[in-house]
């Protein structure tokens, strides 16, 4: 089993590249907890708009803040919002989908209608409503992204769980007198784990983009907490004087999303049921 995994990995260079990118991102986050080149919120106006140098590896922004530090701490923001939003959505959505698959009947139909409803409200729309009510902030961003994620996970888990329920070994378990809850825990959950993990990775990538867009629009995390999206907003204002500012946060976002997409695609291939044993 181990060597099969290694050969599979060697045949998927893009997966490895994706893991590298995500690893880089996680390393930046871990680093940010202990040390950053400069305090990211330290304003130093005399030193504004400096080009990259030994002192400031990526230069400084319009208020003299060190860009490298902003990027590293911004990585943390993206990660936290992403994990929270996708985690919440996955938990709720999977609960709904699995419940529907187990109970069937009117409950199933109702739950699916409710979940489908979430598809009409993409993250930005929900964020607009929430921001109008409660103002922008991390909570708004997480809640807005989570709503859409719930719908996605509800649908995916429902169809994956439904497929497991129709398998022969589940019929056998039921014939032995196993209750629905037990079947769900013993058989359904382990067997839908793979597609859910793949979907979670992809949704994570989507969440990063959504968080960036929300911060860009001013609906996400509030200043002074750094965020890649808001950095792009500020960079745009400095477009004529310092066009290079727009480069770094955008590259950071693109690399993080690319990494996650590659990992998700790779996982989808690696976790293909033909390679993994039945549970």
């Amino acid at each position, binding site marked *: 089993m181990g060597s099969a995994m290694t050969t599979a990995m060697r045949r998927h260079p893009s997966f490895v590249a994706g893991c590298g990118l995500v690893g880089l991102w996680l390393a930046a986050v871990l680093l940010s907890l202990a040390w950053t080149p400069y305090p990211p919120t330290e304003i130093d106006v005399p030193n504004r708009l400096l080009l990259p140098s030994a002192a400031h590896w990526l230069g400084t922004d319009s208020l003299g803040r060190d860009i490298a530090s902003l990027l590293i701490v911004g990585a943390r923001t993206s990660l936290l919002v992403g994990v929270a939003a996708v985690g919440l959505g996955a938990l709720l959505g999977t609960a709904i989908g699995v419940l529907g698959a187990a109970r069937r009947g009117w409950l199933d139909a109702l739950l699916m209608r409710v979940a*489908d*409803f979430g*598809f*009409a*409200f*993409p*993250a*930005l*729309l929900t964020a*607009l*409503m*929430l*921001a*109008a*009510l*409660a103002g922008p902030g991390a909570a708004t961003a997480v809640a807005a992204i989570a709503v859409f994620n719930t719908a996605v996970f509800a649908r995916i888990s429902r169809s994956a769980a439904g497929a497991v329920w129709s398998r022969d070994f589940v019929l056998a378990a039921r014939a032995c007198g196993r209750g629905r809850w037990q079947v769900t825990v013993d058989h359904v959950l382990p067997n839908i784990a793979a597609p859910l993990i793949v979907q979670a990775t992809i949704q994570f*990538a989507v969440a990063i*983009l959504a968080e*960036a*867009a929300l911060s*860009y*629009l*001013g609906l996400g995390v509030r200043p002074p907490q750094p965020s890649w*999206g808001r950095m*792009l907003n500020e*960079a*745009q204002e400095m*477009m*004529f004087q310092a*066009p290079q500012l*727009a480069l770094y*946060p*955008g590259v950071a*976002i*693109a*690399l993080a*999303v*690319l990494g996650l*997409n*590659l990992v998700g695609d790779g996982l989808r291939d690696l976790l293909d049921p033909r390679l993994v044993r039945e549970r």
Partner: protein
Amino acid sequence: MFLIRRGAAFVATLLAASALIFAVLALLPGSAVDVRLETGATPEAAAALAQQLGLDQPPLVRYGRWLRGLASGDLGRSVAYDAPIAELLAERLLVTVPLALIAMALTVVFALALGVFAASRHRRLGDAGVMALSQLGMAVPNFWLAILLIGVFAVGLQWFPAGGFDGWQDDPAAALRSLLLPAIALAAVQVAILARVTRSAVLEVMREDFVRSARAQGLGRRAVLWRHVLRNALVPVLTVMGLQFANLLTGAIVVEKVFALPGLGLLVFQAIANRDLAVVQNVVMLFAGAVIAINFAVDLLLVAVDPRLKAVHR
């Protein structure tokens, strides 16, 4: 019969969406009253204002009034602009709708072309190239691409304006020019996603037996593509296009901000800043309604393309 069932579901979803939006924005605290009152106003003044705005009515009545307004076109007045909301929306739609349409047209043309091209060059360089580009396209935030486009084409080469929109009246050509870069920024991500879907759908269909049957009848490769493969590949492609429409709309909001286009996006942001909840409510309803309507249209289109889908219950 099928149409009635789907039509009923469509209306039901619209109503449900409107109920949710109304519940969130009109019933929860932080209402329009507080916005308009001066600080230190008395509770009596607040109550009087509430009555004037019709906010003291029971929720169902207010909801009914709003629904009737949606149907008749009377959406009340905007607090911040002091103008009928319907007028404001109509004005802004003249920017957002053409933007979305141009982006959709660009998306369809390029995604289908690239997808079919990649499928025809399967396992060769062309396919790998398109897939790599598509990965990049999906990873790049559309507003960053917009900023980069401005940097290169507007500030650098000065071929297009860096933002703003002067209206259709005086110079339609210039108006179109201001919408082109935003449309490209919007379309890029959509093309990346849709080209992938098209490519895999085409590859799947090409493996089917009926393609071989058509060849056995004497149909050339290109004719097989147009007559059999594309139609059969259309189902998954249309499905994804429908799902992506929501992203197109939200993308439009963001891109409008980047280019400072006076569309629905900017309107709703200003409304949020001004706590002009009525405007937010109606704009959100408009967007949600558009998403639901497009999904309904796609459903109908899918059944028209593949009548087998009539039996599938969603």
